């Protein structure tokens, strides 16, 4: 029986080592993380700080070399493929590169139909399914009629990333991991995508984990910010605490590296 006071997702002492012997590197080092229902957290760090490795471990794509993971208060069990599929019903991800997120041989209809099937609605009549797909597409400002019989590579990067959000809309997961979802997209579409994701969060009440190197984005979206350096969380708290009044040197440096418009951007500290 799951304990009510337990957070939705909890990781204790999560670690990942790559390589062995003298080449051993500790990519993620003893990280503790708890995700409550409906909150938005952001993990910020520079390249190579272990953000994506952590995300992949949360997703169960790679197995940790140390630490424990609890989902809904119980130890996570993804030892078989069937159990993994059941786990992925609750936890989904959007990755950085929209161009490589889709199978280029499947049409967009199939992509969305798969999501409906995954929710266990595969037996619904065809009209009902089309209705659901059209609803998901209209949520992200895409027209379903224009997308049928098209392949993903016929869309622009921004459209593909929006289609990923439509997938999430159909899948209705508990946790969404958004790994650098806007870094390959231009500034104008970025605002649209973030707004859509936030709207979706309010609608289905999911937890969102943003992974980014963009401090501005972290400040804009999150309830809680974690700063990651060399596989460890060095600072955490609300965005106002961490980003407006940073304490650690690393955090200060990260923030000073972002170009700003109301303050002088100090280039001498490179």
């Amino acid at each position, binding site marked *: 029986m799951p304990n009510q006071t337990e957070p939705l997702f909890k990781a204790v002492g999560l670690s990942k080592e790559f390589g062995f012997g003298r080449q051993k590197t500790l990519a993620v080092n003893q990280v503790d993380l708890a995700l409550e229902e409906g909150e938005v957290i952001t993990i910020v760090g*520079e390249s190579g700080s272990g953000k994506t490795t952590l995300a992949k471990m949360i997703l169960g794509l790679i197995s940790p070399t140390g630490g424990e993971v609890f989902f809904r208060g119980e130890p996570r069990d993804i030892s078989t493929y069937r159990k993994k599929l059941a786990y992925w019903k609750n936890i989904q991800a959007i990755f950085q590169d929209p161009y490589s997120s889709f199978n280029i041989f499947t049409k967009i209809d199939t992509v969305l139909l798969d999501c409906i099937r995954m929710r266990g609605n595969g037996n619904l009549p065809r009209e009902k399914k089309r209705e659901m797909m059209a609803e998901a597409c209209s949520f992200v400002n895409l027209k379903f009629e224009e997308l049928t019989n098209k392949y993903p590579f016929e869309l622009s990067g921004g459209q593909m990333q929006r289609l990923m959000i439509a997938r999430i809309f159909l899948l209705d997961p508990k946790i969404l991991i958004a790994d650098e979802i806007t870094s390959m997209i*231009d500034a*104008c579409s970025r605002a649209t995508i973030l707004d859509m994701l936030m709207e979706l969060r309010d609608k289905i009440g999911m937890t969102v984990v943003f992974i980014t190197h*963009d401090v501005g984005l972290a400040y804009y979206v999150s309830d809680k910010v974690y700063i990651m350096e060399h596989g460890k969380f060095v600072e955490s708290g609300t965005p106002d605490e961490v980003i407006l009044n940073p304490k650690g040197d690393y955090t200060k440096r990260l*923030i000073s590296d972002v170009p700003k418009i109301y303050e002088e951007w100090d280039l001498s500290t490179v």
Partner: protein
Amino acid sequence: MAKVMLEVNELTTKYITRFKENVYAVDHVSLKVEEGKSLGIAGESGCGKSTLALSLMGYYFPPLHYTSGEIIIDGQNITGLTPDNIRKSILGTEIAYIPQAAMNALNPTQKVIHFIEDVVHAHFPDATKKEIYDLARTRFETLGLNASVLEKYPVELSGGMKQRTVIATSVILGPKVLIADEPSSALDVTSQKKVIKMLRDMMETEIIKSMIFITHELPLLYNVTDDIMVMYAGQIVEKASAEKAVFDPLHPYANGLMGAIIVPEEGLRDVKLTAIPGVPPNLKNPPEGCRFAERCKYAVPQCKVIKVSLNEIGNGRAYRCIFSEDELREFYKDAKSN
């Protein structure tokens, strides 16, 4: 008055598709960059920023074709030159170009110094290895790069380092104009800052005389360049100093872009980001009137009929809209108070 390094008059270039349709990706663009100044070009994906950059080099290859207009670099008109002449006498010495994925230019099987030798030999076949090495070493050291990089293979360098190496190499012959097309978009913020610092250093030490910087990140543009030009659907829609373009944009599209800025500064969380709805028009058959009319909040019926020209309003400012300055400012004030 400062010397004009790059002058472009009514440049138009087109892509010819495989169905023989003409797509005018750069449509009557005029610009001027003075010595020691930098110009930023902003706009969303597919608005013609990169095509403009390619066109400015005067080096056209299918499907990109030259249509009309002229490009003058430091008094020399380069429009009529053949591709061979352009490569021999213009690229590298007069004008240099850094694409977004510049780091991919490095050959993984050869040392960095070999890459530099190739560049120099293309222009000065008589240069000796010793001369080139000395030139490269002094250039790298002025730009804050370690000279040991020269003896390394590209795989030994990080992404940001590779990018900076290629940028330093592209200016080895001291070009008059440097075109930087999203040189920092693929990098994280720390490496980005190093790249920007390097571009600034190059301007200050007069290795390059002027710069055109292309990006969609407005906060970055604001910090790097003196002037900003906003492009939409192949045309210039706004031209102003960096200060004015960010804090007092006139064209509705430019104003929309400013609404999508994300910076980690106080007050951002209270502002709702406003994205511009819709998509840019298809340039195969662009709209008769204003190209932005479809997506514009303030559009009136005439917008879609009247051909709008660029209004020059002095101080180097210009915008492309049928409304007057005051009317536009009034619109934005109302939008803000709501």
